[in-house]
């Protein structure tokens, strides 16, 4: 243990590095080798066992405070423990007694760790046996959410988007005759948490399918959410073409879906690959609704699968993720439905809900042509040089009015993507 030169390190307050709640061992081998938890300030901490010293009766461990993104990436096998240590500026050596009680904590940097103790490049989160459930939690972080508050309208859109996403996945299981009901549970802090429970009942009340409880529907939904958030954008090309060469992660999801059908003894769709591709494209639209809420009043959103003992992170969405996701959904829509651009300016009714009067760009609501109950949220650009203040273009913002404008529309299918508006006052 001498190689750590503890006497030269700066001492930290124990409460910064001490895990006081949500303790969970990710790998055990004589000692908790890798574990996670939170300190009293709610920061996520990952810890690992370094060494024991029988002379001084002390155990040396390494504790690192994680960002929400790092936590999610690590738990989902996106980054290794080594990468976390390399990029972290909050590493600490934690000295414990032989009853695992913290004695002292020291601030260190990655380069001062003895090489022989460094994790290897393969130090990804161990594949533990995960207990799945149909209980989910959506946690908002940053800005207003950190004050344990949220905008009612945004919460309502997230609730609706996620509820529809969950219920549609169950309804789309052909031959199961299931009635899903997503139940809301009381909100919780942290920073702002929305809790859901998915209740599934069978349409046939007389006994129903006896084998249904064996079907891993919970595992399927959890993996589905994880796939959509982690792999969908990088797999975009699979969905924009007739290509049925599935990525490893998509194959994994297909295997679980296959298992759902086989364990329930229900005939699966003729072409499971086509089914899963179509279903993911459909569900991406629901997910997009959730991504549209991120950025203004909270910075990120995590979806967690909640079991009796712990919470498994399934998805992490920040502003960058949302942009990539929305652009992938748009690319897929263009590949399926094609893009059209109007040749001439046409009259249409819009509601401008965001406008930068300097750049003359913003966003508006417009009813879709095929279904006027659904609205598009195209980007807009207003031509001309005259000032926009106190014109009809700001009436939606200040007078809550729908306005009539002349615009050339860029559309994907029947959905408006961009409006090039002719200035006319």
């Amino acid at each position, binding site marked *: 243990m001498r190689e750590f030169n503890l006497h030269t390190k700066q001492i930290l307050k124990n409460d910064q590095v001490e895990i006081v709640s949500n303790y969970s061992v990710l790998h055990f081998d004589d000692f908790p*080798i890798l574990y996670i938890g939170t300190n009293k300030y709610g920061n996520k901490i990952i810890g690992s066992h370094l060494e024991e010293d029988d002379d001084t009766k002390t155990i040396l461990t390494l504790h690192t405070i994680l960002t929400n993104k790092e936590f999610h990436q690590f738990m989902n096998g996106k980054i290794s423990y080594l990468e976390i240590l390399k990029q972290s500026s909050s590493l600490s050596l934690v000295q414990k007694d032989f009853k695992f009680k913290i004695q002292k904590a020291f601030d260190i940097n990655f380069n001062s760790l003895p090489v022989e103790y460094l*994790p*290897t490049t393969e130090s990804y989160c161990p594949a533990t046996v995960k207990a799945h459930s149909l209980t989910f939690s959506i946690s908002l972080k940053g800005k207003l959410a950190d004050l344990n508050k949220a905008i009612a309208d945004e919460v309502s859109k997230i609730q609706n988007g996620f509820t529809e996403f969950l219920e549609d996945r169950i309804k789309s299981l052909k031959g199961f005759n299931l009635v899903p009901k997503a139940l809301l549970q009381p909100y919780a802090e942290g920073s702002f948490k929305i809790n859901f429970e998915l209740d599934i009942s069978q349409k046939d009340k007389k006994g129903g399918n006896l084998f249904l409880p064996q079907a891993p529907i919970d595992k399927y939904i959890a993996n589905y959410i994880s796939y959509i958030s982690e792999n969908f954008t990088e797999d975009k090309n699979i969905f924009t073409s007739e290509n049925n060469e599935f990525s490893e992660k998509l194959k994994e999801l297909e295997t679980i879906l296959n298992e759902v059908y086989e364990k329930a003894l229900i005939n699966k769709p003729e072409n499971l690959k086509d089914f899963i591709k179509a279903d993911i494209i459909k569900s991406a639209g629901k997910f997009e609704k959730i991504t549209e809420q991120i950025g203004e009043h909270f910075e990120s959103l995590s979806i967690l699968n909640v079991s009796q003992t712990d919470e498994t992170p399934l998805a992490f969405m920040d502003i960058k993720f949302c942009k990539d996701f929305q652009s992938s959904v748009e690319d897929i829509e263009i590949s399926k439905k094609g893009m059209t651009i109007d040749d001439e300016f046409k009259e249409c009714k819009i509601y401008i809900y965001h406008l930068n009067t300097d750049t003359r760009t913003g966003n508006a609501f417009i009813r879709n042509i095929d279904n006027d109950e659904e609205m598009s949220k195209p980007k807009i650009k207003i031509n001309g040089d005259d000032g926009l203040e106190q014109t009809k273009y700001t009436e939606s913002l200040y007078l809550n009015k729908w306005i009539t404008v002349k615009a050339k529309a860029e559309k994907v299918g029947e959905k408006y993507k961009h409006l090039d508006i002719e200035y006319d006052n």
Partner: protein
Amino acid sequence: MTFENIHSDTDCDCLSKAVIDTSNEYVRKLRKDKVEDKDFLTHWEREIRPETDDCETICSFKGVSINQLKPEFENQILEKYKTTFTINPKKGAHYLKFRLNEDTGKVKYSPEEDDKSHYNLFKADDFNLDKIVIVETVKFA
């Protein structure tokens, strides 16, 4: 065979359901490339104490963690060792394959969700490395 060390400092009956097993092969990870006395020291002998005082945990601290080598679990055992190595290579890259004698001690099946072949070895009071039958040392990483 006496087990004074196992019975001392506790009211827990760690030897309940523990048996003598001279037929099966077991494995234990080593710190270095050769087995040393220290590899078979229990947490309790090293004066490491659990945070909780339930008998299952206390008995696990009084036993040596070993795995029974059965073909269906060989991969799971190896994965456990390799995972430890990736997180902390200093914990060793070798394991010992061995058998027990009549007078080595008793083993108790103590499976975990992700460690199905896990046993606790409760050493007899006069245990030393000569009491085990060494089959081979294997380098796994």
